[in-house]
């Protein structure tokens, strides 16, 4: 279980998170929605300890990751996988090395076996035959999927997806939706996804949380989101430029 308690974060004068509270239950997929620039990626980075908050805590099964250092942090992070919004593949390494890096660093598995796992993870995200390519040779959507394969390579308990379906064609996007659902159902993985893709959010989520002006203003099941009267949430999921949220 992940508990985010009263999280505050500013960059200079730019107040991004202003008291975020959110609890993510074990074995569920929680999707975070909200406008561009509202702080969704920043929130994900807090959860895995890449960004330190100004105030507040994040409890990972009771352990506050914002206070963890060195060995403890390494130990916690090994239970996580993260897909970055911009993929963040290591451009000096091949696809195969990218996906296998965590395994090579943290396990004593023989090389044969690592290659087999890498092939398997790449197959799960619909990629084959690119093991020896460098990231620069891949399309945006392929990079995203390599990033996804890297995030799941260590079979983590928690996966953070920053826009997993952005930049994918609709069919591949849906395949990724199914992958996320399968990982939850078969492996009981707890996931937090950030997405602008409302269709995908409805499909993969147990719960959807909307972030607005630095706070979580709504949490509910996809059904509850569809039926809510909250004008801000309605405007967002219906994608209307006019309403309480100002488009420009």
């Amino acid at each position: 279980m992940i508990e985010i308690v009263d999280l505050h974060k500013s960059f200079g004068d730019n107040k991004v998170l202003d008291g975020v509270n959110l609890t993510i239950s074990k074995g569920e997929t929680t999707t975070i929605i909200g406008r561009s620039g509202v702080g969704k990626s920043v929130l994900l980075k807090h959860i895995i300890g890449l960004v330190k908050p100004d105030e507040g805590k994040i409890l990972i099964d009771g352990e506050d990751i914002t206070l963890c250092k060195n060995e403890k942090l390494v130990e916690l992070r090994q239970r996580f996988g993260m897909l970055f919004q911009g993929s963040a593949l290591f451009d000096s390494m091949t696809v195969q090395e990218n996906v296998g890096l965590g395994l090579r660093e943290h396990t004593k598995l023989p090389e044969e076996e690592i290659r087999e796992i890498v092939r398997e993870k790449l197959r799960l995200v619909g990629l084959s035959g690119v093991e020896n390519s460098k990231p620069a040779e891949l399309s945006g959507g392929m990079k995203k999927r390599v990033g996804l394969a890297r995030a799941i390579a260590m079979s983590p308990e928690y996966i953070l997806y920053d826009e997993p379906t952005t930049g994918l064609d609709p069919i591949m996007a849906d395949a990724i939706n199914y992958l996320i659902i399968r990982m939850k159902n078969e492996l009981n993985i707890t996931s937090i996804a950030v997405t602008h893709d409302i269709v995908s959010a409805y499909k993969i989520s147990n719960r959807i949380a909307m972030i607005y002006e630095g706070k979580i203003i709504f949490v509910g099941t996809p059904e509850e989101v569809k039926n809510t009267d909250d004008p801000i949430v309605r405007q967002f999921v219906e994608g209307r430029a006019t309403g309480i949220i100002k488009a420009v």
Partner: protein
Amino acid sequence: MGMRLVSYIGSKAIGFLADIGGVAILLKEILFNLPRLFKNFHLTTEQMVFIGVNSLPLIIFVSIFTGAVSSVQAAYQFHNYVPMRYLGTAVGKAVVIELGPVLTALVVSGRVGAAIAAELGTMKVTEQIDALETLAIDPIHYLVVPRFIAGITMLPILVLFSDLVAILGALVVAVVFVDVSAHTFLSGLKMFFHLSDLFAGLFKALIFGGIITTIGCYQGFKTTGGAEGVGTSTTRAVVISSVLILVADYVIASFLFG
């Protein structure tokens, strides 16, 4: 106007102090990560090839001319005042103590310091360093220590080559253009040759190697703001490490020879 100037100077001074603190912390982290050096040693050997082997052609080229010009210059200054049998002495000392280490370091800082800052800076702005951390891999262990170790080991080796080639260049010029025989030149070289001078030069090289790689990594990690930021970091890495090399050269010289 006056206030603006004061606050400008103030903010620069704070930035400067913050950088000193930042570099100190980086050095401390490098130190703490040294025990794990041999895990992933291939990263260090890769950097040794990049910093050492791949710099060699450039260093040899620069050193030939350094030696040649110091021979010509020394001969010009000796003319009618100092006997030419001391030509080898003067050139040898200058090369081994000063020219070899400093010029090698400046050339390497342009080639390697810039490359390190650009590579790590790009990794920083494209979130690759964040990605390493999410894989529970310490960027200090994975990126910085290999470069640092390669820097402090390869610089002395490069300087050895540089010394050798520069003296060779000086010898050739002495024989061909100054009309000093090879025998005279070499006996002058041997006359006051102290092994301690050579070691002083190599010790400097080690320090310079540390400066180049530490500053390169520090600037890389500090990069923000896309391609433009990478450009700024790269320039800074070269400028700052060049200045520090000269300052360190003076400090070491005044300790060893002062």
